[in-house]
């Protein structure tokens, strides 16, 4: 086989994998700190994409520049979700929180469907749209490249925030032992709320990048959220670095495997990868 095809596949896998990573980082944060599986995570992604899209079509703001607004908006969505949906069910079985976020997911998706319709939309006149650079026979789509770099930077920023800042220390303490953290004077409810906001902001950034080269429609979150569940488990729950690397791995497997075996099997391959990893390294690739 032509080596350029292989390189091309690796690069494409890497680029989409980085988007997966950022989505999964948001999910793993919430999961790791609160032990809550946020089913509405994919719908947050969809909301972010629609927010960028509407700002582009309505106000003419390029997705590049509306990114901070989208991120801020999603942070607020995350805070609101925590206050209204998650807080009342904290302290009960995690299943209840799961079902609540599932209900929220159905609600958000269909409200958007109701107001904006089921059509697939694509931004194709933005600054980045459709542009690509060629390099030694390889093609790099500019929006994907830009998104990938953005994803790396944001993931690194989140990592720094959690490992270095005071808030990060509070967050880690809360994740380890909520009750003891409370005794040490950490306002755990505030940490939870901010974590939820931060998780939503991560997926908001991912949506703001994704909208540059991916179709927007009410169901768009489903594929990504299913992938990110697997990525989070692969990387070890609550492990940001793990989620980051596992996202890249899933992107590569999906792209290369999909090419070699057939595109209809690309998700199956990811699930099989997960099952193999779990039987060899039971706590995920980077779990302890």
């Amino acid at each position: 086989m032509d080596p350029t095809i292989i390189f091309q596949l690796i690069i494409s896998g890497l680029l989409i994998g980085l988007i997966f990573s950022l989505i999964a980082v948001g999910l793993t944060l919430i999961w790791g700190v609160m032990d809550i599986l946020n089913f509405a995570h994919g719908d947050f992604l969809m909301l972010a994409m629609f927010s960028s899209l509407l700002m582009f079509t309505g106000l003419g703001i390029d997705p590049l520049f509306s990114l901070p607004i989208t991120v801020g908006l999603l942070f607020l969505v995350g805070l609101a979700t925590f206050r209204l949906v998650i807080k009342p069910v904290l302290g009960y079985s995690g299943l209840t929180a799961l079902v609540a976020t599932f209900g929220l997911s159905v609600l958000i998706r269909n409200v958007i469907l109701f107001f904006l319709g089921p059509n697939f939309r694509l931004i194709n006149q933005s600054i980045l749209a459709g542009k690509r650079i060629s390099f030694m026979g390889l093609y790099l789509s500019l929006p994907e490249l830009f998104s990938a770099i953005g994803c790396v930077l944001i993931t690194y920023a989140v990592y720094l925030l959690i490992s270095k800042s005071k808030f990060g220390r509070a967050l880690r303490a809360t994740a380890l032992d909520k009750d003891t953290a409370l005794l040490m004077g950490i306002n755990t409810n505030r940490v939870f709320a901010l974590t939820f906001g931060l998780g939503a902001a991560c997926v908001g950034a991912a949506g703001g990048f994704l909208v540059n080269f991916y179709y927007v429609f009410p169901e768009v979150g489903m594929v990504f959220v299913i992938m990110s569940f697997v990525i989070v488990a692969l990387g070890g729950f609550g492990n940001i670095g793990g989620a980051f690397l596992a996202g890249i791995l899933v992107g590569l497997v999906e792209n290369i495997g999909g090419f070699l075996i057939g595109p209809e099997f690309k998700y199956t391959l990811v699930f099989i990868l997960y099952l193999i990893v779990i039987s060899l390294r039971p706590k995920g690739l980077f779990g302890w």
Partner: protein
Amino acid sequence: MQKEKNFYTAFSVIIFLMAIAPLVIQNTHFQHLVIMLLLYATLSQAWNLIGGYAGQVSFGHAIFFGIGSYAAMAPLMRWGLTPWVGMLIGGVVAVIVALSIGVPVFRLRGHYFAISTFAVAEVVRELFTNWEWVDGPIGLDAPVMEEGFYNLMFYTNKLPYHYIVLAFFIIMMYLTFRMERSRMGYYFRAIKQRPEAAEAMGVYISLYKQYAFMISGFFTAICGALYGLYVLHIEPGTVLSLDISIKIVLITVLGGAGALWGPLLGSVILIPLQEYSRIWLGGTGKGIDLIVLGALIVLICIFEPRGVIGLIKRVGYQRGKK
């Protein structure tokens, strides 16, 4: 044993009501609704064993559901084998699948099991979609056969289906009730609440998780078979879908996970809600029915995090105080 007596009283009243319901109201749509309600109550009770009592959340019960419905339908179509045998085959296959998922994963705590069931379900669905013998993505249509219990096919009215499903519902409820009071039931709850403590007391936790999963899978497969034989058409996109897996979880948790009456309560609320909101509000293609459904799910969770059973218990407690 006051509690036991209470159970038998309530249980016989419910059986009686369910048995006469389709005779009193002879509306076909109502009869269909009651059959679905009982079927989902049985299914969710099967899930409740592993997800509610033993606390191991499975997002992949569609695996067993699908296997059951295919095991009953495919041999019936290809060889004319009676679906009763197919049902049993489905159950046995489900137990084997449950074993192969459980052995590597039940050593672990936390969400690894949940994500694994989910991954296996997606793989199994892909397998059936690409399997020629069961007509891949098109799925199977039940052949037209002689009516009767041997073929489990009834074309003229729904009553036989109703009583067959009711019979399985009774079996499932009774088994769960006995299980709750048996050694195994205490083990399950101990595993859910304090796995370390349970292990220290000598409970072989991975083995008992495995038991719960196998029993649950077996009955889920039987429900799948009943579903296929009743609906007469199955395809990977419906019987093996994530929707089915989630619906089972939803019903149980809304009703009350780990509670004997939870699954029945959940399906009494959710199934008619879904059907009627679809009839009244659906059809516009705009998803108003799903908006209502989603909002109600969130509201029930917020106001009654223990499930509807929590509400009933609270009311009962306040009445007891007076």
